């Protein structure tokens, strides 16, 4: 009998059963927590154990501090990221479409690309003050630089046949830009978004470690002074989770917007 039930259509068998990758992921995660637990309980490590971190997590969540810290960091990232990409996309298109613009702008971008945004912080603080402006500025820079390069790469790698196909159907340069170049370069732009969001997130935490009165980075900095390891852990885990969620959002919008691509 078992032979017969094995021969059922594979689709039916899979329904309701979680995919293998998910199961393995959960097992791996649980094993990691277990190892962490073992290391702390056995005294091998001075790190706080998972329970202490979970308790602190609950406390910080209950008194609202975690939410306000996460909110402060997120607000900086999103502001910097939105402004950065909003400037990057037109500049990237300009560079891809007009050779003159490319030659004029590219040296600056190449130069600032090799300067880590964090290295700008001292200068930004001196010139922009100690409030939100310097932090948002460096995040803007981080998001802008990765998105502008991606957009410009996207425009110059648009398949010439699409452009020719549009031209022979009677399309003007403007139509070609709006109806061919923009959709064809969207996959590249979204890759830039993904990288830009990652570097914006990395930059905000570091910026908060250096100069801030709120945010997850600031909280870790404070906790360090008091040797408050559980709070540092809570902040780190929150940073990881938020970063992961933002990355998933970009990936999700990528599959929605560029599902037309032939993927391997």
């Amino acid at each position, binding site marked *: 009998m078992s032979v017969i039930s094995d021969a059922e259509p594979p689709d039916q068998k899979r329904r309701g059963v979680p995919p293998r990758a998910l199961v393995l992921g959960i097992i791996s995660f649980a094993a990691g927590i277990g190892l962490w637990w073992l290391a702390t309980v056995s005294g091998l490590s001075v790190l706080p154990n998972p329970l202490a971190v979970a308790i602190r997590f609950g406390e910080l969540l209950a008194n609202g501090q975690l939410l306000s810290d996460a909110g402060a960091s997120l607000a900086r990232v999103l502001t910097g990221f939105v402004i950065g990409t909003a400037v990057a996309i037109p500049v990237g298109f300009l560079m891809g479409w007009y050779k003159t613009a490319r030659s004029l702008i590219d040296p600056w971008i190449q130069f600032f690309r090799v300067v880590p945004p964090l290295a700008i912080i001292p200068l930004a603080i001196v010139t922009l003050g100690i409030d939100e402006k310097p932090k948002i500025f460096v995040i803007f820079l981080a998001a802008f630089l990765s998105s502008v390069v991606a957009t410009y790469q996207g425009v110059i790698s648009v*398949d010439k*046949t*699409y452009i*020719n*196909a*549009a*031209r*022979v*159907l*009677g*399309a003007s340069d403007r*139509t070609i830009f709006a*109806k*061919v170049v923009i*959709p*064809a370069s*969207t996959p590249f732009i979204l890759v830039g978004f993904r990288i830009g969001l990652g570097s914006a997130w990395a930059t905000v935490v570091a910026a908060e470690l250096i100069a801030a009165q709120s945010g997850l980075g600031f909280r870790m900095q404070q906790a360090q002074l008091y040797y408050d390891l559980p709070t540092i852990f809570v902040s780190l885990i929150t940073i990881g989770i938020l970063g992961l969620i933002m990355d998933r959002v970009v990936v999700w919008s990528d599959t929605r917007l*560029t*599902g*037309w*691509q*032939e993927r391997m």
Partner: protein
Amino acid sequence: MDTQDPKIRFDNVTKVFGEGVDAFTALRNLNLDIADGEIVTVVGPSGCGKSTAMNIVAGLQDVTSGQCLVNGTEVHGPGPDRGVIFQQYALFPWLTVRKNVEFGLKLQGLGKDERRKRAEHYIALVGLSDFADTLPKNLSGGMKQRCAIARAYAVNPSVLLMDEPFGALDALTRVRLQDQLLDTWSRDKRTIMFITHDVDEAVYLAHRVIVLAARPGRLQEIIEVDLPFPRNEDIRLSSEFTKIRNRVWHAVYTRSDKETA
């Protein structure tokens, strides 16, 4: 046909790419008239300038000297009076079959309903009605090319320029699309300039086969295909067909071999 003005005229057309020592003559002094409603196929070894000749008619490339006339006026840039079908299909992958076919109609300023009606007509003509809302990635090569043909037909060009359109397809699909092309032609009698490297295809479709030679690209020979329309399998297997086919084959391959040897 002789009394009419030609639909397409190459008047001493020369096309040189690059300059100085890097200069490459893709076409030299090409003179050729294509009559209204005529099907002309162009064959020749690679580097003979057959794609260049087509791109010049399409307005995608300028001539270096001489002139190219369509309907008696010199070609300046592309236009919807000349439909082009590319080997790589060139469908917009982010648009469905319907939206691809409607692309050119939208550019002509047609209203939504008229656009839809016209698109549906041409999608049906190439047998893709069941796939109207499918994205190109979910179509086979033959279906993609049929969609590209529908897109080109939809704007109602008086000239069809086809650059090895069936080159990437399997033999059976190719034969089917050839028959469909001739079938459509028998009704609308559009002028067709068809580039191919397949000698059988060149003879089967054409009134005249234009053989080009390479380095520099130039006219080698024009071979009249004295076979009746409609063409079918019997014609493809006839001895007359084989005779013409051999002539074309000889003109293309034997001579180009001698030259390179």
